[in-house]
């Protein structure tokens, strides 16, 4: 008995410890971590036992061991925290006393191993997050030093990186938001890993920050990146339909590690200002913000004054006659002044669209052919959007 325990202590890893106990007792065993993933097993474990453990993961989580009649399942708990489960492929009644003692000893040692691994992982994650925080906020003295340090986490920071920020569109309750963000992190990692070499993901202040290397020459444009993100977003929504709406902001590509902070701020700005265009599920590139960038520096009251001054006549006409001329004008600008596309968006005929625009000209007493007037109306429409979403 003493010899087997000594040998068990000397085995350093999970597989070694399982092997020792299997050698002395003949027990077939499985180790699952707290997520229910298989961490180790002896070679003779029956497939149906494994399948049962996989299928009844929820019962395991709820500490309900009734479905596992043919197995001996032991939860691995340390300081009231669950780290996993050790299961033997036979009922407890079939075990000899010595075998059961060794099984219990093994469960204690595996708990320690899983706890220790968890602590190390948490520490590595913490250090990694602190390092990435420094990169994102330019909190370092020398770029070379950061590039060297990045190699410890397999980050090739000497190459240009795109920065993308993802955030939920509606505020969620504390715990729920964190859990969903972790899910989002997992999903984005899965989707992007298939396309990019080692994307870097990090949760920072309720936002998911993604960095990925640009390996192509010439580099991808922001519109190409937006297309990739649209595809990734669709895949995530398909795999995880219950996920709340989220938006994506994309910064410009900067070539040095010292400029990642700028790209990060640009991505955050694109995400924030992009919501004035598309409040939910939007993908906005910093380069596409256009006049919104300038308008965001102006007081909301001033923007409101400008919008009322320019579009007041049209708004008054709409409210008196129940028309939607302002909406028509906004869609016309949104669709790049294309009559056919705007008509399609509004589900009306192109001629109806043409008539509505003529009506806008009549009501406002202006000609939409004049560039300065068109520009003023466009800016006023953008200002109105900001005002609507701010006040």
């Amino acid at each position: 008995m003493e010899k087997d325990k000594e040998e068990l202590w000397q085995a350093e890893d999970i597989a070694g410890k399982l092997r020792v106990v299997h050698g002395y007792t003949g027990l077939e065993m499985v180790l699952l971590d707290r997520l229910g993933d298989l961490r180790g097993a002896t070679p003779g474990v029956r497939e149906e036992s494994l399948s049962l453990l996989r299928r009844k993961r929820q019962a395991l989580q709820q500490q309900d061991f009734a479905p596992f009649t043919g197995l001996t399942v032991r939860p691995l708990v340390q300081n009231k925290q669950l780290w996993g489960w050790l299961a033997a492929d036979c009922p407890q009644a079939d075990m000899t006393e010595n075998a059961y003692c060794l099984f219990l000893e093994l469960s204690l040692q595996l708990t320690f191993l899983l706890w220790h691994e968890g602590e190390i992982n948490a520490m590595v994650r913490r250090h990694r997050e602190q390092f990435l925080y420094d990169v994102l906020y330019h909190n370092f003295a020398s770029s070379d030093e950061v590039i060297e340090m990045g190699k410890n986490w397999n980050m090739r920071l000497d190459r240009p990186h795109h920065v993308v920020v993802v955030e939920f569109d509606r505020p969620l309750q504390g715990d729920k938001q964190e859990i969903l963000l972790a899910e989002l992190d997992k999903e984005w990692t899965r989707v992007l890993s298939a396309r990019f070499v080692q994307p870097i993901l990090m949760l920072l202040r309720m936002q998911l920050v993604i960095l990925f290397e640009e390996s192509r020459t010439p580099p991808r444009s922001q519109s190409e990146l937006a297309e990739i993100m649209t595809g990734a977003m669709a895949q995530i929504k398909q795999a995880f339909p219950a996920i709340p709406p989220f938006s994506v902001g994309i910064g410009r590509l900067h070539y040095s590690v010292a400029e990642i902070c700028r790209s990060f701020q640009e991505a955050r700005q694109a995400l924030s200002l992009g919501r004035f265009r598309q409040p939910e599920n939007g993908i906005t590139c910093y380069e596409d913000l256009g006049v919104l960038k300038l308008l965001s520096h102006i007081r909301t009251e001033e923007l409101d004054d400008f919008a009322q001054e320019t579009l007041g006549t049209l708004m008054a006409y709409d409210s008196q006659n129940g028309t939607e001329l302002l909406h028509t004008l906004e869609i016309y600008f949104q669709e790049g002044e294309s009559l056919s596309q705007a008509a399609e968006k509004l589900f009306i005929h192109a001629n109806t669209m043409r008539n509505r625009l003529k009506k806008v000209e009549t009501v406002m007493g202006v000609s939409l052919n004049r560039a300065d007037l068109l520009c003023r109306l466009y800016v006023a429409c953008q200002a109105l959007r900001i005002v609507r979403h701010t006040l």
Partner: protein
Amino acid sequence: MEPQQLGFQVDLSRCVGCRACEKACQHKHPDLPRAFRHVDEWDGDRREQGFLSMSCNHCTSPECMRVCPMGCYEKRRDGIVLHNSAKCIGCGRCVGACPFHAPRLLPHTGKAAKCDMCQERLAAGRQPQCVEACPVEALRLCNIEGEGIGWQDYPLVRYTQPSLKFIKARQPLCFWREDRDGKR
């Protein structure tokens, strides 16, 4: 050190507008034409007047960092935004971009400068000069957790997220002595 966000907390009920914070900042930076911290008067909704003590708000998403072409700005893990004047070329972009006009161009150097939350005092375990000078403890240093305040004035400020907390002014309790004839 775990990333956090230090910020200023201003209790508008306590502030009496004595400008001690402003003077303390001026004392610490005697070469500045005007202190980084300034107290503005404003008309509140209910109180007759109020005072607002402002300096750099060490935003979560600093606009100065985004616009600086030389990468002069950095944000420490405690949230303080620092300006490195050695790299500064005095282009003034940060001055124009900051919604609070926190960075200033110094006439004698031609470079930008801004409040650094008295980082050397913080390192020595002391409070910033302005906080220490406030006689009514209206100005404090705090750790901003989660959302700061919901700014509505500028769309930009919703994104920059200044690390500033206000404790709203309460209606002061007034006790009037009445004369014998019932007049105040």
